[in-house]
């Protein structure tokens, strides 16, 4: 687990490809949508989630058990990948997985803000990023937001959080802190990427993700009509929007939809955009962006088989699987029918 030495894509790709084979396919999803929460947990116990279900089974039950087992398995798998990889490969993978660090920081801050129980915060963490157990323990033990900021001093979130903390003290809202964390993550995500061909493909994928995030944020703002400055939510690094164009487009939904339809993503997102115009449903658009990213991710590993791209492709597929199982379990809990749940899944 280090960024020194030469990279070893052969080893990591071989292991990741083997694991990819054990991800759930259409057949398994069809079975899962017809099961209750207890049966889903049982089904997971017999597959690659066995260890986590057994470890957590005594403390949690029902949908919570599924959720925590999914989180823990995800964290374990991604930690493994970081453990195996060395050199430039480590750096490229860690860039993407730092989003779990950002998630953890935000979870802890929210937990402290709402005076949540330490163990309640702990189960919601996904330990897949670069933070080690000691740092996470110290984060959990922090009893004020000031203490959280202090623990994070030496990480990439240190300086931005320190700056945002002053604003937080003035307004007593978490938005500046959360924005600071997100921005620190996205800044590191795209800075100083190498120039070889697989890395460029990876970069294109990351840019697409930033574009979609901006698009979804802008659509939400445009639909809600809230008086919020869209530029404050703008994430640097995408190709589709600039800070100015986003601020202008977020005021007018029709113009924004048209702009996205005319962009390079128009072909993939076209049907979802039409649905957005007709049914006013943002969910379909979010699913379409997820599906477009997943389809792109599937393609990603095929052109350069021995590089970072198949690893990223696996990470995406795994994330999607966890989200799908969670959607099934939550849907079952809420009493949705199998067809309704199926429409919530993102499967390529």
């Amino acid at each position: 687990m280090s960024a020194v030495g030469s990279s070893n894509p052969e080893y990591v790709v071989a292991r990741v490809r083997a694991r990819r084979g054990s991800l759930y396919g259409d057949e398994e999803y069809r079975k899962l949508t017809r099961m209750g929460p207890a049966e889903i947990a049982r089904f997971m116990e017999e597959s690659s989630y066995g260890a986590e279900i057994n470890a957590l089974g005594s403390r949690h039950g029902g949908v919570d058990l599924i959720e925590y087992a999914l989180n823990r398995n995800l964290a374990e798998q991604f930690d493994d990948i970081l453990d195996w990889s060395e050199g430039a490969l480590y750096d490229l993978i860690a860039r993407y997985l730092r989003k779990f660090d950002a998630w953890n920081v935000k979870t802890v801050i929210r937990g402290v803000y709402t005076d949540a129980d330490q163990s309640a915060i702990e189960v919601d963490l996904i330990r897949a990023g670069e933070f080690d157990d000691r740092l996470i323990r110290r984060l959990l033990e922090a009893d004020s937001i000031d203490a959280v900021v202090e623990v994070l001093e030496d990480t990439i979130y240190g300086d931005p959080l320190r700056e945002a903390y002053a604003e937080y003290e003035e307004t007593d809202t978490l938005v500046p802190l959360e924005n600071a964390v997100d921005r620190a993550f996205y800044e590191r995500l795209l800075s100083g990427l190498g120039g070889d061909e697989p890395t460029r493909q990876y970069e294109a994928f990351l840019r697409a993700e930033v574009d979609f995030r901006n698009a979804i944020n802008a659509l939400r703002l445009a639909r809600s009509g809230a008086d919020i400055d869209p530029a404050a939510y703008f994430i640097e690094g995408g190709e589709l929007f600039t800070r100015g164009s986003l601020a202008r487009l977020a005021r007018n939904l029709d113009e924004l939809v048209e702009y996205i339809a005319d962009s390079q993503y128009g072909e993939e997102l076209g049907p979802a955009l039409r649905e957005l115009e007709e049914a006013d449903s943002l969910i379909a658009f979010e699913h379409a962006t997820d599906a477009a990213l997943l389809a792109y991710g599937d393609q990603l590993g095929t052109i350069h088989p021995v590089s970072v791209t198949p690893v990223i492709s696996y990470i995406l597929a795994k994330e999607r699987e966890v989200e799908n199982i969670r959607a099934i379990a939550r849907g079952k809990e809420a009493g949705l029918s199998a067809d309704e749940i199926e429409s919530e899944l993102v499967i390529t």
Partner: protein
Amino acid sequence: MLEATNELGNVALQAGGTLTDANAAAALAVGLAALGAGYAERGIGSAAVGAMAEDDDLFVNGLILTVLPETIVILALVVVFIV
């Protein structure tokens, strides 16, 4: 570039002439082939170990694929018997 190569050739000629000893040339051929095989095995070997770590059944396949580049060295060894 071309001039530099010429220059280098001249220097080599003055310093000791070309490689005229057939045995030495054959040894060089085998050595370079072995080097190439070793480089190829590096990648295949680490991939094979990775695959084996996930699934023990892949041991035989991994072993076979890892030693396949070794054939290059065996073919190069033919040169030794020809000269």
